[in-house]
């Protein structure tokens, strides 16, 4: 079964072709390079919301680069939530109408389910059940993945997402954007132990996260010191240690609580080297394995949507002819394919 996947829930316009037998055939993310020229070198981040202009040519490019025709498709999958309704509607309308025109089934997909199952796109797949830590600019979530469509949220951020905290801490320290790499770079020359930041939410039971307090702590510390290069590096290091430690502490608790032996890390913050090293040590100590999908499948992508779409269409699911989106949709409302 050959499935076209479309992702337009937030900033990225992304498409992919997934085949039930051959796996992923190709994927495309709208290149920022073309936009650069158009906007004279400055790309408003949210110009990426202009999905309408980008989606159709992107699909054309995907089909020609994989040597497939629209007529070869057996189904179309598109993200219908959660996300901004305006952005979601672009992918859903185009996907639903295209499927109708081709006389093939269509299915709306949960964005986060795509992320949770993205590691299954890799050759070295984790076995069910596994734990998934999703850490990005928009999400901080720890989930128990019992199987396809069977998810329990164990913990999530009660305020800021961890990636957002990195961005804002970088801003407070006058470092660049995106904040993750900027903080990591500065932290390399930081003096361990000069500042000790609190580890949010680790002094109480449970698996929820909170990053707003850490942001405020960074602000207060920055305001009370002269921000020379060394002090900036020292604060960056203390911030990074606190932010990653709190993730690692919750992951350890979740491993012990569930007894699962595999931990999957998805989302842009998964690229943080300090976090990777700490999680590797954690896995070692707990006798578990940690999986990191390749970077392009950690962030928003079309492959994860085509993949889940294929699983669900194969399970006999498909959407009615109307175009509808679900901007608010809990991961826990999902069921296994066909049920």
């Amino acid at each position, binding site marked *: 079964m050959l499935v076209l996947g479309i992702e337009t829930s*937030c900033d990225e316009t992304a498409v992919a072709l997934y085949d039930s037998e051959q796996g992923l055939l190709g994927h495309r993310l709208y290149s920022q390079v073309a936009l650069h020229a158009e906007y004279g070198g400055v790309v408003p981040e949210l110009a990426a919301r*202009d999905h309408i202009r980008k989606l159709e040519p992107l699909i054309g490019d995907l089909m020609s680069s994989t040597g497939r025709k629209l007529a070869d498709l057996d189904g179309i999958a598109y993200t219908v939530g959660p996300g901004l309704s305006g952005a979601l509607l672009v992918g859903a309308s185009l996907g639903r109408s295209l499927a109708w025109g081709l006389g093939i089934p269509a299915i709306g997909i949960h964005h986060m389910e795509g992320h949770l199952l993205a590691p299954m796109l890799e050759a070295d797949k984790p076995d069910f059940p596994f734990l998934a830590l999703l850490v990005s600019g928009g999400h901080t979530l720890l989930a128990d993945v019992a199987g396809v469509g069977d998810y329990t949220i164990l913990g999530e951020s*009660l305020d800021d*997402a961890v990636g957002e905290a990195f961005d804002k801490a970088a801003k407070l320290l006058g470092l660049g954007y995106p904040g993750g790499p900027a903080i990591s770079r500065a932290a390399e020359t930081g003096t361990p132990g000069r500042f000790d930041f609190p580890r949010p939410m680790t002094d109480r039971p449970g698996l929820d996260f909170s990053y707003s307090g850490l942001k*405020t702590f960074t*602000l207060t510390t920055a305001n009370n010191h002269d921000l020379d290069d060394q002090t900036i590096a020292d604060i960056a290091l203390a911030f990074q240690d606190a932010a990653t430690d709190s993730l690692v502490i919750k992951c350890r608790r979740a491993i012990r609580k569930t007894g699962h032996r595999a931990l999957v890390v998805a989302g842009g913050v998964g690229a943080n080297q300090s976090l990777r090293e700490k999680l590797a040590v954690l896995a070692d100590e707990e006798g578990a394995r940690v999986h990191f999908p390749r970077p392009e499948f950690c962030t928003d992508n079309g492959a994860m949507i085509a993949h889940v779409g294929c699983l669900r269409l194969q399970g006999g699911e498909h959407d009615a002819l109307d175009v509808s989106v679900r901007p608010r949709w809990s991961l826990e409302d999902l069921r296994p394919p066909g049920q």
Partner: protein
Amino acid sequence: MNEHVVGLPDEQATIQLGSRLADVLVEGLVVYLSGDLGAGKTCLVRGMLQGLGHNGPVKSPTYTLVEDYVLGDSLIYHFDLYRLLDPEELELIGIRDYFNGKACCFVEWPERGKGWLPAPDIEIHIRLKNEGREASLTGLSETGAALVASLKRD
């Protein structure tokens, strides 16, 4: 003078001010929230939502741009325009559907949406003061001025 200044020595005081706002909220109210990163803008909105009976997390809308809450008969939109570089981008996300005269809209970083946002009823500015914060509330419409005056009387 339609201005009311409140000292906010700690986070609890910010939550408390949010909760008092919840008590006086009216349909279609537009509130601008300004202040530096970490000033407590989202914290104030959290206090307001909890005052209306919301129990779940109040996530920062920095990444999603807007989070919505249905609480009883009230519909609340919590915006964060921090990531906006060009106000016109608001048109692309369908901003006009949100400011519909029914929903209450709380907008962080409103200056980034200049020209595309409706005028506010109330403007709240939070600034750092000593170890804590200080909020100034200004009523900018008839409704807003009446609400600020009623908060001042409490």
